[in-house]
């Protein structure tokens, strides 16, 4: 029997308390009105460290300058990484719908300062050498800096021409500025909710991933895993509290407490023909009914399989085992259907204008590998504490192989989804990736390194897959990577370019991690860590690879 160590319990409580404080702080500091947003944006603009920008801001002290300040702030952000990105931003901003005359005045100096070094680079002989056939458009194409500089120059002249035209529309500009502020207000108000939502769905899906893995092990009658069944059952015990909290979040959305799902807002739907066309599916009532069916179905399987598993310890025949076997097979059919619909409902519908056919599989791969990783890490923790006598390196090796394989499977789906849309470049579907690459560049490609390149290189080696510290290290990176994956799925549609991993995001992760640890280890302490009377138990004990 495992006893929940008091240190771990304290640790989980500390995580929960700190998490609640972080979440509370982010709710408390979220702006309430448009005026707050204006103040925040004004304050942000003073943080600009770059001298050229500061001068530009002080010169352009007019009413609507804040709008431009937001954008220049972004420029400075990316400026740290690469000037090219900053110029791209400027170009992107030029194309924004919420553009107005005042912004042109304040925006231009910022762009000039960026354009100058880029243009200088274009003149260097090194770049000239790359020119094939002396074609000037290919020349600029070959060098990104040069290409950007050209664009900026084009835009510069365009904006001067536009400036005159805009001058007459100062009134409209003011209205647009107000609309922009409201837009930012909504994003900032969504931020704490989105942080909680991402963490809630991530941890709930980890336990669902472990449950799916558990069901597969039963249905496949695997011979290596029965000694890990109790660990898996421990992890899936988080499914019930996790799904209750998550369901509350969904209900709050339908009740308009938060606005993560814009299709729930009747004001938006009224003016949006696309969402109107989908409202037969995307409406609050049906949405909640589906959620009840999915969460209910999964929790029922989890409840009865655990009950049978415990009862099987006292059994004299294999009736209960056979029952669990049949139940697992049925659950897997139910699971794959509901999992697919779940991913449309809870993740894809934050972008109700966008759709992807393999999205369900993609989400599945993401949380399935997280679930397996959680199993491996908790197994290693318990083994390290001396509780899992029969678990040997071959069991760890098998789990690590699953982590490795499903990581590649995830990448395969990620790439298939990305590449098909990138290749065809159909505007209605490619916007999904445009926003992510432009505004979430580091998380979007960073997670690829964490979820693919790192595990592939580190878990390729057979000997490495047997070393606890390697598996734990790979597991931490994989779990963080898949958190960022969910972050990338939810945030762009809810907070847009106002994203930041701050108190709210970290607090939400800490709260749910603390709750996860508390629930999982409490459940582990409730039953012996090894099942009894499982027909494959003996084989599992002596499993050797």
């Amino acid at each position, binding site marked *: 029997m495992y006893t929940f160590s008091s240190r771990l319990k304290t640790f989980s409580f500390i995580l929960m308390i700190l998490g609640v404080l972080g979440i509370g702080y982010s709710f408390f500091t979220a702006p309430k009105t448009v005026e707050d947003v204006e103040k925040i944006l004004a304050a942000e603009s003073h943080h600009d460290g770059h001298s050229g920008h500061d001068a530009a801001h002080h010169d352009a002290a007019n009413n609507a300058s804040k709008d431009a300040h937001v954008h220049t702030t972004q420029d400075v952000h990316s400026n740290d990484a690469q000037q090219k990105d900053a110029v791209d931003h400027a170009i992107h901003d030029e194309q924004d719908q919420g553009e107005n005359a005042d912004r042109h005045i304040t925006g231009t100096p910022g762009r000039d300062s960026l354009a100058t070094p880029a243009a200088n680079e274009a003149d260097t002989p090194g770049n000239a050498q790359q020119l*094939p056939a002396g074609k000037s458009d290919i020349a600029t*194409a*070959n060098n*990104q800096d040069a290409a950007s500089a050209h664009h900026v120059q084009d835009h510069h002249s365009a904006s001067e021409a536009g400036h005159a035209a805009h001058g007459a529309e100062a009134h409209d500009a003011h209205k647009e500025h107000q609309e922009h502020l409201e837009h930012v207000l909504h994003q900032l108000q969504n931020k704490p909710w989105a942080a909680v939502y991402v963490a809630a769905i991530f941890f709930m899906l980890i336990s669902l991933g472990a449950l799916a893995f558990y069901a597969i092990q039963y249905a496949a009658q695997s011979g290596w895993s029965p000694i890990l069944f109790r660990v898996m059952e421990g992890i899936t015990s988080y499914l019930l509290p996790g799904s209750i909290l998550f369901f509350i979040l969904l209900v709050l959305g339908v009740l308009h407490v938060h606005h993560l799902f814009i299709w729930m807002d009747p004001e938006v739907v009224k003016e949006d023909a696309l969402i109107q066309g989908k409202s037969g599916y995307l409406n609050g009532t049906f949405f909640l009914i589906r959620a009840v069916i999915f969460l209910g179905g999964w929790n029922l399987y989890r409840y009865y399989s655990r009950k049978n598993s415990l009862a099987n310890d006292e059994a004299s025949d294999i009736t209960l085992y056979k029952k669990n076997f049949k139940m697992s097979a049925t659950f897997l059919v139910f699971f794959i259907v509901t999992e697919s619909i779940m991913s449309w409902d809870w993740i894809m519908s934050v972008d109700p204008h966008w759709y992807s056919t393999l999205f369900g599989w993609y989400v599945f791969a993401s949380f399935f590998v997280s679930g397996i990783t959680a199993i491996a890490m908790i197994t290693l923790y318990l083994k390290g504490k001396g509780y899992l006598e029969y678990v040997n390196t071959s069991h760890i090796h098998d789990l690590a192989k699953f982590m490795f394989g499903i990581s590649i499977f995830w990448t395969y789906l990620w*790439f298939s989804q990305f*590449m098909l849309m990138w*290749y065809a470049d159909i505007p209605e579907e490619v916007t999904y990736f445009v926003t992510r690459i432009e505004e979430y560049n580091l998380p979007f490609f960073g997670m690829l390194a964490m979820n693919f390149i790192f595990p592939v290189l580190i878990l390729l080696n057979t000997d490495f897959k047997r070393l606890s510290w390697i598996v734990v290290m790979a597991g931490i990176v994989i779990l963080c990577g898949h958190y960022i994956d969910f972050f990338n799925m939810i945030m762009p549609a809810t907070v847009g370019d106002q994203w930041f991993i701050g108190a709210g995001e970290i607090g939400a992760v800490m709260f749910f991690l603390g709750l996860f640890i508390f629930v999982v280890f409490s459940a582990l302490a409730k039953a012996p860590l090894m099942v009894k009377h499982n027909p494959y138990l003996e084989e599992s004990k002596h499993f050797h690879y």
Partner: protein
Amino acid sequence: MTNKVLHVLYNDDDVLMDAVKKTRAAHHHIEEIYTPFPVHGLDKAMGLEPTRIAITSFLYGLVGLSVAVTMVRYMMIIDWPQDIGGKPSFSFIQNMPAFVPVMFEMTVFFAAHLMVITFYMRSKLWPFKKAENPDVRTTDDHFLMEVAAHGDVDQMVSFFENTGAVEVKVIEKH
């Protein structure tokens, strides 16, 4: 000078495994073992070095990846950067997703084929190679252990007869 070896035949892989352990314990040198099918754990019992073919495969994969990258980069980006259906041929990274299928397949192709060829070369297998089979029964249902003879050969024969062998032969190898 003649070189004597013992050919010890078994008809069960479990017996063979036990015999291998006993032989190693008695410090007789096992030259070779012929089996009709893979016997799990035989290499460990014989004390053979683990194979390094997976490492070669990984390196071949890297070669394949480099070949693919160099090829597509030269052809599509450097040599003739045409506008084909609006694909951005300005730099390799900009058009990279379109090249990934090629890069992947080339990696697998090189890793697989070169590894197989390495295997053939290291195990000296090729068409028209003369089969090195000391006893035809070893391809069907018998296991043969070849042990170098040294010292008292009669004593060795009786030692191997006690390990469950169905037949022990002393062979002169030239």
